[in-house]
């Protein structure tokens, strides 16, 4: 077990395990309650795999009413609850604790309604992100947020973490594409918030719940904004002599009034590793590359890429490769999309997720290099350049606790540097347990206490995903303050 602390399990809850499981079985029949050690093991971690905690039990309800009864029961029993989609959180957002029951939405994965005229879709939140787009692709529509875990991650998790993706420069993140939810409160009430009509009056609880990291209650259904697909899309790949030049080109493209759907950045180390894995034909002599994707009809794409090409060349691009076929487009994206996998093949890594004002890019890249050099670690930089969301991958050896500790420390320093230049700790992965203790670097105590009071408004007993987001030692204090 590594450096991030979790609260000590409550022995009184552990002692009542059999009784709690029996209570759950009265609500959710048959295989919906999981209590054997073997089966629970599948739920002991998420994508922050260095951390594992065996939950007390796992419940997989099949209906919103069952979720409501489970939450009411566990709230009444004073048992912590860990909501779970597919468990793909990179921040430990779905990490269980020994005295908590995992409540998963995986058995609630249906499309309930599609309305193309209204451009809306109603789903149960256990559906995967890709499953949403897959259900409407034949109609020429798609769901815009596209986190790289989209094959596995659920809408429940996307709503909880306000997930982004590569295309949010144009289309926004989850909160911008979410119109309504069925929300289950800790008291077991089922509340409809928003719906297929825009901008419900009253406080924007929908906007508040989205990104609340599952700390308020559970979302079992969602109404999503769906969009017509563009006529076509095409990426272009630019090589630059340096990261600085690539950063300057990004700013210049946007400054020229062009907002592509995606601008992705890779530095030299990332290029080498990805090219070795994917054979995407990346320029091996480049210090950094940008993948810029634009959408539209073929002639529109030509025109936009010509404008972007001019700007890139004026900012020092040394090579440009435009995809002329679907296969070439796929090849350009292949390296980027397989980047995390390629990296994982050569080394363990932790993936950071800070965002910075894009104008500070050269400075922050230099600092990342310095931080990792000082720790004796390698770092590869891959990120969504258009919106300043960095994903430095700090490479380490999982079998060497010293190496992990160094990597975690370097990661923290990188995030603190992001905050220092006017950015934030996390652009799309969420705080979870991973960045919990760093929150005091971004927020004042008054700001954290205000957020914690909001949690208390939904969950006065602090049972819902309780050991996440806020520094552990602040919790006791604020519960007094609230």
């Amino acid at each position, binding site marked *: 077990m590594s450096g991030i602390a979790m609260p000590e399990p409550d022995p009184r809850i552990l002692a009542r395990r059999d009784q709690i499981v029996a209570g759950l079985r009265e609500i959710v029949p048959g295989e919906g309650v999981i209590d054997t050690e073997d089966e629970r093991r599948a739920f002991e971690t998420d994508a922050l795999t260095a951390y594992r905690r065996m939950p007390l039990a796992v419940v997989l309800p099949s209906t919103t009413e069952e979720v409501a009864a489970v939450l009411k029961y566990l709230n009444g029993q004073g048992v912590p609850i860990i909501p779970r989609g597919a468990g793909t959180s990179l921040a430990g957002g779905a990490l269980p604790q020994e005295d908590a029951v995992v409540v998963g939405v995986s058995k609630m994965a249906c499309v309930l309604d599609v309305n193309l*005229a209204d451009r809306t879709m109603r789903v149960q939140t256990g559906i995967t992100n890709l499953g949403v787009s897959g259900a409407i692709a034949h109609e020429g529509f798609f769901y815009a947020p596209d986190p790289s875990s989209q094959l596995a991650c659920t809408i429940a998790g996307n709503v909880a973490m306000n997930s982004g993706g590569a295309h949010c420069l144009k289309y926004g*993140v989850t*909160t911008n594409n979410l119109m309504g939810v069925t929300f289950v409160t800790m008291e077991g009430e089922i509340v409809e918030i928003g719906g297929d009509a*825009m901008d*419900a009056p009253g406080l924007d609880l929908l906007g508040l719940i989205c990104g609340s990291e599952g700390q308020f209650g559970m979302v079992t259904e969602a109404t999503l904004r769906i969009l017509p697909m563009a006529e076509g899309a095409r990426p272009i790949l630019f090589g630059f002599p340096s990261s600085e030049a690539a950063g300057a080109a990004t700013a210049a493209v946007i400054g020229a009034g062009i907002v592509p759907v995606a601008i992705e950045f890779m530095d030299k180390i990332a290029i080498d590793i990805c090219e070795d894995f994917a054979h995407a034909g990346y320029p091996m002599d480049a210090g950094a590359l940008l993948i810029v994707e634009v959408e539209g009809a073929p*002639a529109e794409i030509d025109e936009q890429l010509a404008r972007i090409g001019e700007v890139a060349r004026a900012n020092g691009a040394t090579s440009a490769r435009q995809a002329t076929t679907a296969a070439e487009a796929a090849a350009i994206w292949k390296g980027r999309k397989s980047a995390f996998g390629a990296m994982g093949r050569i080394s363990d890594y932790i993936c950071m997720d800070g965002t910075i004002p894009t104008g500070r890019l050269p400075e922050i890249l230099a600092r990342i290099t310095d931080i990792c050099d000082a720790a004796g670690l390698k770092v590869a930089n891959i990120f969504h350049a258009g919106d300043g969301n960095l994903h430095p991958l700090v490479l380490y050896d999982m079998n060497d606790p010293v190496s992990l500790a160094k990597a975690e420390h370097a990661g923290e320093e990188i995030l603190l540097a992001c905050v220092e230049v006017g950015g*934030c700790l996390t652009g799309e992965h969420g705080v979870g347990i991973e960045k919990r203790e760093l929150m005091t670097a971004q927020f004042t105590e008054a700001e954290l206490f*205000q957020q914690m009071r*909001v949690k208390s408004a939904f969950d006065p007993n602090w049972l819902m995903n309780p050991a996440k987001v806020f520094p552990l030692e602040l919790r006791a204090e604020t519960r007094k303050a609230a």
Partner: protein
Amino acid sequence: MTDLISPIDEAGVEAAVHAAMSSKTPIAIRGGGSRAGLGRPIQAARTLTTEKLTGVTLLEPAELVASAKAGTSVAEFEAELAKAGQRLAFEPFDHRALYGSTAEPTVGGMVATNASGPRRVIAGAARDALIGVRLVTGRGETIRSGGRVMKNVTGYDLVKLACGSHGTLGVVTEATFKTLPIPESELSLVWEGLDDARGVEALCAAMGSPFETSGAAHLPATANAPARTVARLENFESQLRYRAGELEKLLKPYGAAARLDAGASHDLWGEIRDVAPLLGDAARQVWKISVAPSRAAALAARLGPLVAAHLYDWSGGLLWVAVEPTDDAGSSSLRPAVREARGHATLVRASDAVRAAVDVFEPEAPALARLSEAVTAAFDPAGVLNPGRMHVRH
């Protein structure tokens, strides 16, 4: 006449809120006062205005971000953005025409009311563009949420919560927005003579196409003019020609479209944003109804006898209805019909007496109302900021 407090800085706002807390005297919050007719009227001995907190504090077109203090006029903010080739994509709604006000709309008021115009249909609402706020809570504490980067999930999204909270959680002192480049040009296509159902259907077809329709309104026939169904396109000049042609082809079943050039298109969308076609008689009461486009025309038909004038924006998702003045603004028949259509209605123009007597905002289901009250209390435990502006507090 109430006392007017005009702090010149955030510390002044904090002091005013502290004073209100310790004397248990509620204060009304306003910016320039151009939206004073919005929300439930409230009784407050003192009014705090943010109009002296002014200035554009950040303008970074290459990062698509800009900030302004709350009292900055929307006009000044938009002018500064325009100099940098940028704009607020949600096309801020301007309440002056609706209320016949000559006061200056401010950034703070725009945030407090989530004031979005026609482009909301494709670009999102004010709350979607808002990425950071500073606000003085009802506890008299200044807090920040969000920031100046557009991708940020650090901590709860109190930015969204502040937007549209009508000053009931805190006094917004500064706001940061994602901005977008002003497109090279615009044009609009206009189909004449469609009935409501066909008009909304045509708009939905336009919105479902890949041509990025950035305005979609249907103006029903009046005594002097046929119905007009309007779709706006904004883009580079060369792309506009192509897209307009494609959209015309797609919507051929609805007849031939006339084209409005950039100037005429700009003027017409200004009128639509201001709901000018509804505003004939100043005594008329006005409702703003959100409903799924596919149920909008049927809802308008059902409201038939009540409706003095109406128009559809947001592809039919926003139905503006003017009614002849009555003591309840037609609420008793309008609200059940809207509820049945799974929409929600806000009474945006009526006298203080009427807005005190009927619900201005859509009444919330009990469980939702309880959550909203608990959240409000988390920010303003003593209930000193605009108490009762949105709903009667229990």
